[in-house]
């Protein structure tokens, strides 16, 4: 009974569209849980089901063991950080943060103290008198966070809260959010379409596709052992090989995934536990910390390889388009996929 959130066979239909399709998941208390997926994959609808803005068409949702169906949002011990922050434009920052306390009838003096504390927690102690319109995007985001946390919810929902921030700020907020979650011990449910964000912050990640969950796993497992072609390709970059080619390379008619950074270029004989293919270089992209080499196998199948750049490399790229090359990778680095079996 320590599950903060439990979905059992939950579906949400909009007309004939199954936005959420028979989803079951459970999130233990105190976990940083991410819902990852492309837009329209059902992750935000799941979040809204937890918050109470949507009601499930089928299935059951339990919050800390209590059935949540039919419970309106204002009676749930859950707070949300909205994608557009949804700050009240007619109130100053302090009143925004104190709003949840005010509607619950907390006395004015305590409201002020707690709002100030919450603002200090997100390093905005000096900004209480400002209007939301006078803040930058990153500051508004922190106000939204303070406004949710001041209520001391048991579950905090975050709907792509970092989407509108620039890269530097996003990375900074990522580590701050993670730190905050550890400090407070609150369950965080974090919705994002950014796989790096999900991998770097979460205890566990659920990958959504077409309203269904493809896989729920720790970031490490998700990356190293993707179970489906969708997960392999959505989380990081991957080469998914199937059909006849897969049969020839590994002796089994099963699709598999191999990460670009696990592929090496051959020097000498292949070891017995390695797979080896001949290809030619199609394109070379310098990406800073790594170089990405697009290969084409003889049957036209593309293969992406990533090689870390180190200081010994000269100015000129080591690979030229059109060059013939032998690529190899250890069998252990290959992950067999559950779906996408033998394709003609």
């Amino acid at each position, binding site marked *: 009974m320590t599950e903060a959130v439990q979905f059992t066979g939950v579906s949400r239909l909009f007309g004939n569209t199954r936005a959420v399709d028979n989803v079951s998941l459970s999130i233990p208390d105190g976990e940083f849980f991410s819902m990852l997926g492309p837009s329209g994959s059902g992750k935000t609808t799941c979040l809204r089901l937890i918050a109470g803005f949507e009601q499930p068409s089928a299935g059951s949702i339990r919050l800390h063991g209590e059935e949540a169906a039919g419970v309106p949002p204002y009676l749930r011990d859950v707070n949300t950080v909205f*994608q557009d922050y949804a700050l009240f434009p007619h109130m100053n920052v302090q009143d925004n943060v104190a709003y949840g306390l*005010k509607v619950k009838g907390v006395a004015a003096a305590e409201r002020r103290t707690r709002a100030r504390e919450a603002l200090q927690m997100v390093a905005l102690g000096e900004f209480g008198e400002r209007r939301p319109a006078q803040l930058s995007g990153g500051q508004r985001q922190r106000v939204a966070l303070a406004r949710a946390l001041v209520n001391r919810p048991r579950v905090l929902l975050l709907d792509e809260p970092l989407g509108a921030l620039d890269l530097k700020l996003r990375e900074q907020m990522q580590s701050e959010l993670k730190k905050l979650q550890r400090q407070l011990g609150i369950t965080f449910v974090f919705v994002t379409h950014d796989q790096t964000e999900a991998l770097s912050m979460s205890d566990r990640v659920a990958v959504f596709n077409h309203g269904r969950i493809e896989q729920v796993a720790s970031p490490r497992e998700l990356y190293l052992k993707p179970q489906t072609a969708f997960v392999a390709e959505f989380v990081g970059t991957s080469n998914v090989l199937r059909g006849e080619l897969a049969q020839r390379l590994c002796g089994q008619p099963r699709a598999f995934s191999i990460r670009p950074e696990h592929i090496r270029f051959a020097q000498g004989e292949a070891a017995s536990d390695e797979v080896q293919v001949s290809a030619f270089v199609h394109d070379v992209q310098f990406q800073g910390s790594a170089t990405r080499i697009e290969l084409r196998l003889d049957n036209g199948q593309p293969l992406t390889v990533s090689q870390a750049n180190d200081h010994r490399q000269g100015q000129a790229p080591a690979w030229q388009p059109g060059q013939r090359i032998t690529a190899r990778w250890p069998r252990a680095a290959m992950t067999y996929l559950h779906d996408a079996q033998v394709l003609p």
Partner: protein
Amino acid sequence: MNLALEHRTGGTAPGPRRRLANLLYRRPGLYLALLLLPPLAWFGAVYLGSLANLLWQGLYTFDDFSMAVTPELTLANLVALFNAANLDIILRTLAMAVAVSIASALLAFPIAWYMARYTRGRMKAFFYIAVMLPMWASYIVKAYSWTLLLAKGGVLQWFLAHLGLEPALLWLLGLPWLGGSTLSTSHLGRFLVFVYIWLPFMILPIQAALERLPPSLLQASADLGATPRQTFVHVVLPLAVPGIAAGSIFTFSLTLGDFIVPQLVGPPGYFIGSMVYAQQGAIGNLPMAAAFTLVPIVLIAAYLAIVKRLGAFDAL
């Protein structure tokens, strides 16, 4: 790429139209001034200029014996506004304008809310047309038809009689501030006609204000623990107030200036509008009419100042 470049630089010298376009591009201030000058000139001369001229005439002298206006400046007209009779007219009109604005806002809000929150596409177009359609019909015809609806033995009374509500109507008509001998000669009847005629002017601004209200604000409020009632009081209403204020400026000022409805419906007695009409028409006292014109302007300015003081425009 090379070809395109040569084409650009090797062409003939730019023509006068191109040179003018370039000049306007380089001097955006000039461009803006040229665009704004004609409408500003029209607005300044025709609207503000003539209004200032009219108000200035409120300071002219009207000779009661010769019925002639002489351009001798006097404050007598403005002082005359505070005569018991004139003050009565002003207060009567003001009370009606306030009542009409409040009733219109109460009626308009649910309709505007429904339009902004629940209608899409064709349904929304239908509502826009339904709200504006009555404004397309002649105002005088509508006012006249109300005199028939409200008349003794008219449709409304017949309908109320069938509902068994005639005693209630008679009781209402017996009240000193609402009543009259029949509905069509009562304050209540006049109020009904005003509300009917100005309601669309209240619905549309409120609808526009509610349309700008992001749904996520309502969800955020509920998420933070506010009941629907609290959300309405703390979030919806404050953000709708600019729309209500805009709508009430219409209903308020249109009622203050109207001179037809007070003549057709309701008990005898002047309104500000009908007083202006009478002063400048039958009596020919243009300075007094001009002085009366000042009253709605001052009242609306005071109203706006109060509304602003209450924080109605903070959300803008």
